């Protein structure tokens, strides 16, 4: 009985050590790996902010218009139109009318009515979030 208990304890300890090393590598080595794997892309944007600096593979744009591609905005506009929140307005631009429609939709859904196309709003509208927010704008995520 005792050898078996010792063996079980040893196994548990080994498991814990493995788990700890795994999580540590996730924090340190993982971070380094992630950074190394993603080459520095692009130059810092000027005041227009169309193209943001990229670290860890994420785009850092200055405006929601630069974050989402026209295709994503168009999909969002179609989803808003189909719910009767936006008229015939599918130009792919995140304009005042679209933001107003987004605010109305967000209020209906109990979301914070910022008028910005955040992830949760896109999810509720059925627009693929991973594509819209991915490394490339315009659904190439």
């Amino acid at each position: 009985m005792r050898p078996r208990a010792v063996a079980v304890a040893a196994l548990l300890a080994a498991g814990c050590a493995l788990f700890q090393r795994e999580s540590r590598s996730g924090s340190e080595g993982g971070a380094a790996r992630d950074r190394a794997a993603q080459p520095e892309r692009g130059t810092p944007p000027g005041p227009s902010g169309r193209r943001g600096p990229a670290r860890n593979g994420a785009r850092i744009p200055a405006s929601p218009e630069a974050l989402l591609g026209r295709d994503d905005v168009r999909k969002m506009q179609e989803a808003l139109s189909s719910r009767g929140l936006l008229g015939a307005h599918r130009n792919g631009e995140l304009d005042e009318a679209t933001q107003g429609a987004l605010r109305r939709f967000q209020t209906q859904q109990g979301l914070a009515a910022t008028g910005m196309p955040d992830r949760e709003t896109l999810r509720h509208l059925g627009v693929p979030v991973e594509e819209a927010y991915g490394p490339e704008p315009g659904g190439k995520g």
Partner: protein
Amino acid sequence: MKRALEISALVVGSLVVVLAAMLVAAQPLARWETRRVLSRLDGMRASFESVQVRVADLSYEIRGLHIDKVDEAGKGHPFLEVQRVRAGVYGHELLGGHLVLAVDLVEPRVTLVESTRKGERRTPESAGETTRRIERMTPLRIDRVQVRRGEVVWVDAREPEKPVLRLSAVEATLENFASRPSLARKQPTVLAARALLQRTGRVEAFATADPLAKTLTFAGQGSVRGLALADIATLLESKTDLRVTQGAIDVFARFQAQDGTLNGGVRPVLHGAKVKAGKPGVGPALKALIGDAALSIFKDKDTGTIATTIPIEGTVEGPETQFVPTVLGILRNAFVRGLEGGLSGLPPPKAPKPEGILEQSRRALSPDRGEPRSQPAERKR
């Protein structure tokens, strides 16, 4: 066989009893733990109406939370009131070994009273240290924090008039804040907000960031539109003798920080402003009023003339290097800079004696001849 069945039934029965006991005990335990945590807040007094833990959707909810700051005399001053806070863990992500949270705040009201002495500074912390601190955290991702119908009230208790700045109807979200790059899924942390400044200023802010970059890396924009100057008249009068009678201001700002360097611009647009009197140094007074001395984000190389667009240049290696306070600090300072830029030269200095059209034109067209002057009224004969 019968013995084995009996043991199995006993184990299952015990588990059911334990589970039921946990469910029954969860609510009082949550109440007790909440009370214990709140009682430990230094210099604060807290109360709440109810606490609820839901096992089904792994969430915790607290209602009617009030936190008062207690002064030396033992008197409480409102600091935070929240109608409802709900925090939950995503069960499906938990099954995959990821801790993913969402927080929903309904009608939070924060009252900030400015009474700190000038020159008081917090201990500086480098951006690298912030990143390391985030990476030391438990691997987790905050999927979403949302604020609905929030309010932030800022009171300058250093002035006898106690001017107040009020941000109401705050709707805000913060999404995808991860403590590990792998959890961020190669997507940025995004902050979006909308609010009303005083009674008329429509505020919008948007920013994205990579909180795990070695230096603080973010970009964003903010605007205040249609802010009636009369709304901030008390604020202006308390710090300057500038008396605003009418007019409105729009302030637009866009900024980006990469490798510790911040750049961008602030554009103030003033509409039909009328002021009665003024004294020099409106800008510094406003900066001292609203700009936090500890948050030295703007270290402008060029502080000379105010152009249509005021450039923002500086470093973000300063004392505050966390994403949200830094971005909020930049937006706040951009507002001050915009206000300062918009109001600079108002009212224009008065010429000691009437100037001819040619002299007035020369002065207007030649920056080295000083700013245009208003003309003294001609005496009636």
